[in-house]
C-alpha cells in the first residue's frame, strides 16, 4: 500500500494542474500520465430511486462532460458509474468492505462523518498524498467556506472534496395546519409551542401530529435529524474540549421531548420501529398524514420535490411550510441561542489504491467546478459547497434560501471523531428505548455506561 501511495505521488507530481472550470485544456506535460485512464465512480445514488436526480446527472451530464474535457487534453478517459440505492449504513458497510479488500472503486462519495474512521483504518489517505501537490493549488478551495471544508477534513488534513452541506429545519403541512386552526406562517419559539400545535393537530382524524426521528432503524437520521437539535436546544453537545460528554440534564431533557411526543400520543412509535420507517414516514408526509416533521432540506429537494422526488408532492411550494427548530425555551440553546440546526454533508474522495490518481483528482476537481456544480443544480436545487454557486442559484428556491440564510448561521456540526459513529449508535439505542417506553433517566444511565465502555472513562467528562 505504501509503495502504491509513493508511486501515486510520483505520478501525480509530474503532471500539470487541473483546471477549476474544467473547460480550458490544462497544461498536461507529463509523459507519465496514462493516456487511457479507466475510472469507476460510485455513490449511494440510483436513477429512479435514492438521489435519482444526482444519479441521472452523473451519468448523463457529468461523465460525458468530463470525458470531453479530458479529450481536449489528449486523454481518453473511460468513466463508469456504479449506482447504489440502499440505506446509508449498508452503503457504508459495503464501501468499507470494498476498500478493505482492495477492490474499492476509484472515486466514491462518503458521508463527512465517516472520514475519521476511514482514515484511521487506512482506507483513505490525505488527497495530496494520493494525487500530489496540485490538490492544494486547486482554485476551487477558495470558494468553499472553512466550515464546509471541515466536512472533508480529519486532523487538519484534506481527505475529500465536500459536495455541499445541508441544514435541519421543521417542515409542516400547511393544509393540516389550516384545518387545525394553526397559522400558515408558523414559527415555534419553544418545545412547548411544538406540543401545543401537536395537541391541536391530534384532533384531526387519521393524522399523526409529529414525526421526530427516534428509532434504531432510522440510523443516523435519528441522531442528526432528531436528537442532536434537541440536545443543542437544551444547551448540550455530545463532545466538547476533547472529551465525550456525560448524559447530563440536557441529554435527559432531549430524551424527555421524545417521551412527550411518543408517550403523549403525538407521534407514531410503530413508524419509528419499522425497518422501513423512514421511507414510510416520507410517504405519509407527502400524503398529508403527518403535520410536523423535523428533517434536513433533503426532504424539500429530494423527497417531496414534484420533480424527481421519492415521494413527490405536486403542490409542495404552497403546501409545505418550514420553520427553524426552536430551543427548549428562548435562549436555552448552545451559545445562548434561541434556534438551532445541525448540518452535515458528504464528500467525494479517491481510493488510495486507484491506478489513476491523477485522473481521479481531475475528476474531483471537474465535478466540483463552478460549471458542473451549476449543471447539477439544474436538476435539483441544493446547498452546494461553493459560495459562488450558492449566491447565484439559491435565490431561486425560497426554502434553500431560508436554510442558507436563517438555519446555517445557527447550525452545528457533528464531532469529526473516529468514535462518533459508535457514539451515534448508542444515542440511537437510548432514543429508541424512550420511544419504546423506557424513562429518560434509565435510558440516559444506560447510555452513560455504554459510552464509558466504548471510549474509556478517562475520555468522558461531565457537561450541561
Amino acid at each position: 500500500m505504501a509503495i502504491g501511495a509513493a508511486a501515486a505521488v510520483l505520478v501525480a507530481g509530474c503532471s500539470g494542474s487541473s483546471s477549476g472550470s474544467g473547460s480550458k485544456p490544462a497544461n498536461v506535460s507529463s509523459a507519465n500520465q496514462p493516456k487511457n485512464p479507466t475510472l469507476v465512480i460510485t455513490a449511494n445514488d440510483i436513477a429512479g430511486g435514492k438521489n435519482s436526480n444526482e444519479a441521472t446527472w452523473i451519468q448523463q451530464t457529468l461523465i460525458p462532460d468530463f470525458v470531453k474535457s479530458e479529450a481536449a487534453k489528449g486523454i481518453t478517459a473511460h468513466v463508469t458509474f456504479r449506482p447504489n440505492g440502499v440505506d446509508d449504513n449498508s452503503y457504508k458497510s459495503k464501501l468499507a468492505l470494498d476498500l478493505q479488500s482492495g477492490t474499492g472503486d476509484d472515486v466514491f462519495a462518503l458521508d463527512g462523518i465517516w472520514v475519521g474512521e476511514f482514515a484511521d483504518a487506512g482506507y483513505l489517505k490525505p488527497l495530496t498524498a494520493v494525487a500530489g501537490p496540485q490538490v492544494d493549488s486547486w482554485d476551487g478551495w477558495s470558494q468553499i467556506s472553512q466550515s464546509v471544508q471541515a466536512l472533508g477534513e480529519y486532523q487538519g488534513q484534506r481527505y475529500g472534496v465536500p459536495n455541499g452541506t445541508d441544514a435541519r429545519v421543521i417542515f409542516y403541512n400547511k393544509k393540516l395546519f389550516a384545518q387545525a386552526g394553526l397559522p400558515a406562517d408558523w414559527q415555534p419559539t419553544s418545545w412547548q409551542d411544538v406540543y401545543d400545535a401537536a395537541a391541536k393537530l391530534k384532533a384531526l382524524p387519521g393524522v399523526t401530529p409529529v414525526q421526530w426521528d427516534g428509532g434504531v432503524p432510522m440510523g443516523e437520521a435519528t441522531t442528526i435529524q432528531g436528537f442532536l437539535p434537541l440536545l443543542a436546544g437544551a444547551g448540550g453537545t455530545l463532545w466538547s474540549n476533547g472529551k465525550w460528554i456525560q448524559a447530563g440534564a440536557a441529554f435527559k431533557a432531549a430524551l424527555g421531548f421524545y417521551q412527550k411526543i411518543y408517550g403523549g400520543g403525538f407521534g407514531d412509535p410503530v413508524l419509528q420501529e419499522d425497518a422501513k420507517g423512514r421511507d414510510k414516514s416520507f410517504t405519509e408526509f407527502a400524503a398529508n398524514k403527518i403535520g410536523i416533521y423535523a428533517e434536513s432540506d433533503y426532504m424539500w429537494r429530494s423527497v417531496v420535490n414534484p420533480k424527481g422526488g421519492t415521494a413527490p408532492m405536486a403542490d409542495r411550494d404552497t403546501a409545505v411550510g418550514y420553520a427553524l427548530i426552536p430551543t427548549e425555551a428562548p435562549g436555552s440553546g448552545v451559545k445562548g441561542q434561541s434556534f438551532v440546526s445541525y448540518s452535515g454533508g458528504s464528500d467525494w474522495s479517491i481510493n488510495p489504491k486507484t491506478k489513476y490518481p491523477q485522473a481521479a483528482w481531475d475528476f474531483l476537481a471537474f465535478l466540483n467546478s463552478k460549471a458542473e456544480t451549476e449543471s447539477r443544480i439544474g436538476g435539483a436545487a441544493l446547498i452546494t459547497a461553493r459560495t459562488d454557486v450558492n449566491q447565484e442559484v439559491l435565490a431561486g428556491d425560497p426554502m434553500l434560501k431560508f436554510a442558507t440564510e436563517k438555519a446555517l448561521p445557527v447550525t452545528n456540526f457533528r464531532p469529526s471523531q473516529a468514535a462518533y459513529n459508535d457514539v451515534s449508535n448508542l444515542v440511537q439505542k437510548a432514543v429508541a428505548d424512550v420511544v419504546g417506553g423506557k424513562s429518560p433517566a434509565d435510558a440516559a444511565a444506560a447510555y452513560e455506561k455504554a459510552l464509558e465502555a466504548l471510549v474509556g472513562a478517562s475520555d468522558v467528562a461531565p457537561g450541561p
Partner: protein
Amino acid sequence: MARATSPRVPEDPAGLGRARAAGIAAPALLVVAAFLVFPALWTLYLGTTNYRLTGFAARHPRSVGLQNYTNVLQDPDFRHSLWLTFEYAILSAVIGQAVLGFTIAWLLRDATGWFKRLIEALVLLAWILPSSVVAFLWVAMLDRDAGTLNALLDTPGTAWAIEHPMAVIIVFNIWRGTAFSMLLYSAALTGVPPSQLATARMFGASSWQQLRDVVFPHIRGHILTNLLLISLWTFNDFTPYQITAGGPNGKSEILPVYIYQTALFDGQMGLGAAISLLMLVINLVVALVYLRLLRERRQDRVAV
C-alpha cells in the same frame, strides 16, 4: 475383535506406496485446508482481537485475549438473542415444520393423481422461491397500511411484523420449510410395510396406535435425520432479517442477525467472530446430541 476374525489388513491396499497415496490425497486436503480449516482458525484468531471494520483497530488490531467472550457472555442482549434463537428453532422447525410436514405426508400417503401433485407443488413452491423474493412478498402481505393480511382479517392498522415479530418469523419459517420435511417423510412412509399396517388395522388399532406402534419405529431414523437438518438450518437462518431486521428494539434479533448487526452494522469484526465461534460450538453440541440418538437407534436394531 475385528482383528481376531478378519484377515490381516495389508499396509498398502491400493498398491500406490505411501508417497503417491499422499500425493493423490494432497489436493483434496489442500482444498479442505484452504476453505474450511483456515477460515475456522482465522475466526478463532479474530475472536481474540478488537478488530473492526473501520477506524484505528481496522489497521492495527490488538489482541484482547478472551475479553470478547467474557463481554459477550455477560451481555444481556446476547443472552436474549440466544434465547430467541432457541425459541425460533424449536417452535418453527422442531415442532412446526416437522409436525406439519409429517401431517401432510401422512394425509397424502394414499392420495394419487393431480390432487397430490397440486398440494405438493404448492408446498414446494414456498421452498424453491428465492428467499429475498419470498421475504418481499411477506413484507407486503404484513404491511400495516396496505397489507393483504389486514384486509383479510379486517384488522386495519395492525403492524404485524412490529407488534408480533417472533410469531411472524416463526410462522414464516414453518410455511417456508415444511416442504423438506414433507418430502422426506413421504419417502420414508413408502418404506413402511403395508402388510404390517393392514395387520394392525385388522386387530382394530386406532390411527394413533398405528402411527405409534408401526409407523414411527420404522421411520425413526428419518425423523432424527430430518430434525438434525432442519434444526441446524433454522438455527443459522438469516432470512428473518429480511422481514423484521431483528426489530423492533431487538425483539426478533436471533443470533445470525445479532452477529450481522455486531460485525457489519456496528463494524465490530473481532466481537462478531467471537460470537460466531460460540454459535459454531452450539451447533456442534446440537449435532452431537442428534447423532448420538441416531447411533443408539442403530444399536437397537442390531440388538433386535
